[in-house]
């Protein structure tokens, strides 16, 4: 199984360990993983700001880098969602369609494609679970508190096997952290207020770490944690699942 590893731009630049964990995890489960070196960004920051019209360069580059794989996998719900919904190329519509149908976020790839039942990992810490919105509500990685539907969570399913892990949920199980892309600076006051409220709930639960599937959320929460000089650290789901 040939897997193209898509490492979102801010993970590449600021949180390479998430990319490394993702790569190692996929290889552990027998995937033949390639990292196209000329990948850049999915284009989400521009598109969410109303400039989807300027994302041709990103789209074309994405298609160039990720065509020809059985699957494309990324440790990010929001980036995967963006590609799934908005990857287009007028000159190459079929190639875009192919990729849109083959791109997966990491946890759903593990549960739905690789059909992973248990992950052999060890992370003996008390960890707060942050539910990233795009992954949950749009990629359906977990059930949503607003809906009257059977509960499930792909991430929790995988985390169940991690030795020593104590997973705790905040009072508001799936309220948005407030990152929201450029929202984090254009509506800075609300963004920080939202993040502080999330952090507060995890602090109430006295966790050692906060985890989630999207580094963008974690980066935002980490910024607030460190400003508060909190002892709580962030860790991506991939890093927990890869921890020994």
């Amino acid at each position, binding site marked *: 199984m040939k897997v193209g590893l898509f490492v979102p731009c801010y993970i590449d630049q*600021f949180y*390479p360990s998430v990319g490394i964990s993702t*790569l190692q995890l996929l290889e552990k489960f027998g995937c033949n993983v390639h990292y196209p070196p000329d990948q850049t960004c999915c284009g989400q920051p521009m598109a969410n700001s109303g400039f989807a019209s300027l994302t041709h360069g990103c789209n074309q580059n994405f298609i160039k880098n990720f065509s020809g794989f059985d699957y494309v996998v990324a440790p990010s719900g929001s980036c995967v969602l963006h590609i799934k919904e908005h990857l287009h190329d007028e000159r190459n519509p079929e190639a875009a369609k192919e990729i849109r149908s083959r791109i997966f976020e990491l946890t759903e790839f593990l549960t739905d494609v690789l059909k992973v039942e248990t992950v052999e990992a060890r992370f003996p810490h008390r960890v707060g679970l942050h539910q990233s919105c795009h992954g949950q509500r749009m990629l359906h990685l977990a059930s949503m508190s607003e809906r*009257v539907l059977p509960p499930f969570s792909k991430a929790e399913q995988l985390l169940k096997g991690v030795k020593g892990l104590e997973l705790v949920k905040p009072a508001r199980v799936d309220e948005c952290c407030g990152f929201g892309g450029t929202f984090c*600076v254009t509506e800075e006051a*609300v963004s920080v207020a939202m993040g502080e409220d999330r952090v507060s709930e995890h602090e109430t639960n006295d966790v050692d770490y906060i985890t989630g599937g999207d580094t963008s959320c974690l980066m935002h929460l980490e910024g607030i944690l460190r400003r508060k000089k909190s002892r709580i650290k962030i860790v991506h789901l991939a890093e927990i699942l890869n921890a020994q």
Partner: protein
Amino acid sequence: MNDNKTHSQNAEEFLKDRERAHWHDETLWFVRAKRDKAAHNIPEWEALRDAASRIKEHTLSRLDEYLIQFEEKAKANGVQVHWANDAEEHNQIVRDILQKHNAKNVVKSKSMLTEECGLNFYLRDQGINVVDTDLGEYIVQLRNEHPSHIVLPAIHLKKEDVSNTFHEHIGTEKGNKDEVYLTRSARKVLRQKFLSADAAITGVNFAIAETGGIVVCTNEGNADLGVHANKVHIACTGFEKIIPKAEHLSIFLRLLARSATGQPVTTYSSHFHRPGKGQEMHIVIVNNGRTNQLGREEFRGSLKCIRCAACFNTCPVYRRSGGHSYHTAIAGPIGSILAPNIDMKQFADLPFASTLCGSCSNVCPVKINIHEQLWSWRQKLMDEGYGGFAKKASMKVMAGVLGSPAVYKISGKLGRTAMRLMPFAVNNNLNPWYKGREMPEPPKESFREWYTKNKKA
């Protein structure tokens, strides 16, 4: 409500009083929680939402036919039907009916449509006194404020605020903030208003095409008291409130109150078909930009709205910025996709007052894809040039960097190096991120660099 500031500026102001903002957020989250409890008590909840959505979508696709049928039935019931293409015309029609009856004092039950049209201010200028009788609206009216929420108009106020306002305007005891005392005091005052008024104006929750009747939902009984105590009843409605059949009310009434407040149903679901003895009943059907929205394929779904405000209560941004931050009659997520249709320039900021978390779409009883429409409005607004020159320019730069592997790699390396060697370059007050958060630590090597070193064999 500061009309000249953007949502972002208003929100920043709102959040200055952190404690109060936190209280506002908790109060509205509690309403969301009540909604969840009510919804989870109905096993067929999702099927109800689906049916409601499809009924509304069907109705929009045959809207003109249903409006014609509605008008015909209403007229046969002895009701006078008027059509207003815009807010100004709506206000004039209402004024003309009132002047014909020499009405100087009017009682009005909740109607966001009349808020949208600025009816109260218009009538006041014409020498007609309007009293809003919904307790929440009465409170904000006394304070000369706009409602901050379409279902809970005074949600932004604390008991002390109401106590002070009532003391000032209706002579209640100074400092007495007991809610029962305050409510009973308002009851006394407003009862006299109901009985001494010359006309009653109501909104419309649902207009039934099959029978020509309208349904008005309240908890307080103010719509019914107002209408039954007066010789003239004027019901104002946007044309999208129409539903095909009376039986459909079962679906909408099961969804409405549960979505709005978590109650199984409002205390009163009043069906008005024919005017009372000696009474005149009027219905004013209003456009005010709705035909425009109907023609927008991406946005016409917003016309399914039944004004429950579930989206307000779940929106983490609304809860932390308050309805007045949106500087429009209908705030929150639904307001953010309705307002730009009216005036793109004035409301260009609203679709950006969101993280696109998608919670709103999940609680919407008629399944409006609010979060997707917010995204689509962003594209439309930027395409039409409402982003401002600076924004477009910086976006072009970003697109250039992110679209080109070479430029991206260099910029990334340069950026991280600069951050490590000169942290003050970004850790300062010019950087909006830095105001409330620490910047992420720039690692020595990017993932790409690590991969090249360790894996590329």
